């Protein structure tokens, strides 16, 4: 509907538009830096350990939000439904006491049809609530939670008979326990089944990551040399990336060679990183296919897409199904890292937190990319780590920081959505004039 650069429409200076576009991101950067400044309890090691484990836990879920935004469905709070599908799959696998890598693969395989079905239903619902998808997706999460509880508290035990002495089932034989231990990887369970396949030290991961970025930039420049018209690149950003990579490579080589305290940061799970990278790549590549182009045209104008022969309803349903399936896998990756299935609570907050993270990265209801998801997940989780520390060091009360953290989650969603709608309305008025 409105993908033209806002500054052109508003005829304002570029700097002020840039500020308005990135205000949420800037608030979070400032907040995290402020946190480092005032609190002395947080060491770099503690911070990086926390951040990296939280990042690998949440990134996949945040990335699952991108396709619906491209397809014009807005922010899909309904990934909660996908998370439920993931948990149903985990519960089945846990019940039969399967585990390990094969168990994990089975879980993901089981989650696929369940999440697909749920996605199909929610997609149909979004087609019926056109224009109000975001509030509908929020409410459908609450609605599905009721059905989920019915399934786990009543159906398991009353309709599906289960042995009461199973560690997952409540002592009276009806319903699943509040929290279910997923049994650690060594004992043939699901805990860390993905993370523990292969781990490398944190600084090595940094070294590899930035070496890769450096190579990418060099490749871009070489490509540009060969054919300057076809392959363009932005000189300043490329230069910035190169400087950043060189500095980070330097730091990591120094840390590795001197075996400094930075080597004590928690190890990085390789397979999880590869899966996250694969989803990033998928989100980028799908836009180059026919389906991805359909997503885009539907996202820009449903009417024009319809006229040009795209089946709008079907495209929107496909986008929702994809998002739901990725969310279910994301939830499985999240839970294998947590190690316990909090049966009735693990999924409830997922929608809000993931949406907030994406928005912090600079996304809006009509524009979201891999970049926003990655930056957002990092910044949002930094805020999460720092909040209690700031509350403790400024007011002597960690509880205050936790309340503040909750406020930031809701506030950031409200602010980002409100600002976006306000600016869209304003620019539409200008076009009308």
């Amino acid at each position: 509907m409105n993908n033209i650069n806002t500054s052109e429409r508003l005829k304002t200076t570029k700097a002020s538009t840039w500020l308005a576009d990135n205000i949420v991101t800037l608030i979070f950067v400032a907040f995290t830096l402020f946190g480092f400044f005032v609190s002395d309890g947080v060491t770099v090691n503690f911070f990086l350990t926390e951040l990296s484990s939280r990042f690998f836990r949440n990134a996949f879920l945040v990335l699952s939000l991108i396709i619906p935004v491209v397809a014009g469905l807005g922010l899909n709070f309904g990934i909660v439904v996908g998370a439920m599908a993931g948990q149903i799959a985990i519960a089945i696998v846990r019940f039969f006491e399967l585990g390990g890598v094969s168990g994990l693969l089975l879980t993901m395989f089981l989650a696929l049809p369940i999440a697909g079905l749920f996605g199909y239903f929610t997609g149909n619902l979004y087609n019926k609530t056109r224009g109000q998808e975001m509030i509908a997706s929020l409410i459908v999460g609450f609605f599905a939670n009721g059905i989920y509880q019915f399934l786990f508290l009543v159906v398991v035990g009353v309709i599906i008979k289960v042995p009461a002495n199973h560690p997952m089932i409540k002592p009276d034989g009806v319903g699943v326990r509040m929290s279910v231990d997923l049994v650690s990887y060594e004992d043939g369970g699901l805990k860390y089944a993905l993370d523990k396949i292969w781990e490398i030290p944190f600084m090595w991961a940094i070294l590899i990551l930035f070496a890769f970025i450096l190579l990418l930039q060099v490749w871009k420049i070489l490509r540009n040399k060969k054919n300057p018209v076809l392959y363009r690149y932005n000189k300043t950003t490329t230069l910035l990336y190169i400087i950043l990579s060189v500095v980070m490579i330097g730091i990591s080589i120094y840390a590795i060679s001197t075996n400094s305290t930075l080597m004590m940061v928690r190890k990085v799970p390789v397979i999880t990183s590869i899966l996250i990278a694969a989803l990033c790549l998928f989100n980028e590549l799908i836009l180059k296919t026919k389906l991805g182009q359909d997503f885009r045209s539907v996202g820009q104008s449903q009417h024009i897409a319809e006229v040009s022969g795209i089946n709008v309803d079907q495209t929107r349903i496909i986008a929702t199904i994809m998002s739901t399936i990725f969310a279910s896998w994301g939830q499985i990756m999240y839970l294998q890292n947590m190690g316990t299935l909090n049966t009735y609570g693990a999924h409830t907050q997922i929608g809000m937190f993931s949406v907030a993270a994406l928005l912090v990265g600079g996304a809006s209801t009509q524009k979201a990319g891999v970049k926003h998801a990655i930056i957002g997940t990092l910044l949002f989780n930094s805020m999460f780590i720092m909040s209690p520390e700031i509350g403790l060091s400024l007011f002597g009360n960690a509880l205050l920081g936790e309340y503040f953290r909750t406020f930031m989650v809701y506030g950031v969603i409200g602010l980002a959505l409100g600002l976006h709608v306000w600016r869209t309305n304003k620019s539409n008025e200008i076009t009308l004039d």
Partner: protein
Amino acid sequence: MVQAKDKKTTKNIINKIGLPTLIIGTFWIILLIMGGALGISIKTLVSDTIKRAGMNGILVLAMVPSIQSGTGPNFALPVGIVCGLFAIVWSIEFGFTGWSWLFVAIILAIIFAVIVGYFYGRLLNAVKGSEMTIATYTGFSIVAFMCLPWLMIPFKSTNMGWFMGTGLRETIQLDAIGGQHILSKFLSFSLFGEDGLITIGGESGIIIPTGMLLIFFLCCFIVWVYFRSKSGIAISAGGSNPMFAQSSGINIDRCRIKANILSTVMGAIGIIVYSQGYGYTQLYTAPLMMAFPAVAAVLIGGATASRARVSHVIIGVIIYQGLFTTALPVANQMFEGTDLSEILRMVIQNGIILYALTQVKGGDK
């Protein structure tokens, strides 16, 4: 011929009452009959239903002005609720007790709610087209934000602080300041009690909390009259056909602000009436989800996301509260140890909101 005519009238009746109202109403009556058959006291059930309908009534009433003005159900009801809570807390802090506590709280609540409601209305005017989503998050944010003042403002009153440290308690007992059931007990009487047909101040049988019902009906009456005044009709006109209203010289933005101020004020008074009926005031994250039952209740009463009347509120709140007061003991008797009534509440409450959303006309296509 006769049959065809009959069919038409049944259809008319269904259309007039509304399908959701009919289905959920019937469900409630079936549950009541089941409850009677299981030996649960119908008198207690009816008594509880009236009590809870009275407690929640004004909160549900807050939906009418915002729906009529075209901003959709007031998902930001917590904004009004927080104003009411703030007023309650200050009224206790100033040392008022009993009736004076109630009046000071209500007056303060109206003042806070008018100011806050004005800015909330301005906000909704800036985000036309996505009011419901933004309203939900405005409500969530304000509840989360108010957790900080509850913890930080150095209140002195011993009736509401923790025994050690600073900050307010999560639940404040109102009996310490004589505010518990102050309205509910006022002129209350019971029907079919042990001591005869009508007992003033009786404790058995069907208890009628006269004072609480009076203030609920008073608020209903005020809203009903207001929507028959010039200003109220302008609000309804702006909500149902903005283009037409604009061309007949109505300032729609002003109307929307007025309606949302009224809605916020109702939310603020509503939580005071709720708290006295409950006996406790709940702070911190307690109001977070309070908008959804209220929205569901007015929708069950027959309202849509764009049309609502006071009669919808009264019918809706009785059916909604009646259904869940009945469902709890019935479900507990039939399936022991399960939390079936809570599950039922989640499914019905959110199902009805989703149904209403599918009826909203709009969007790109």
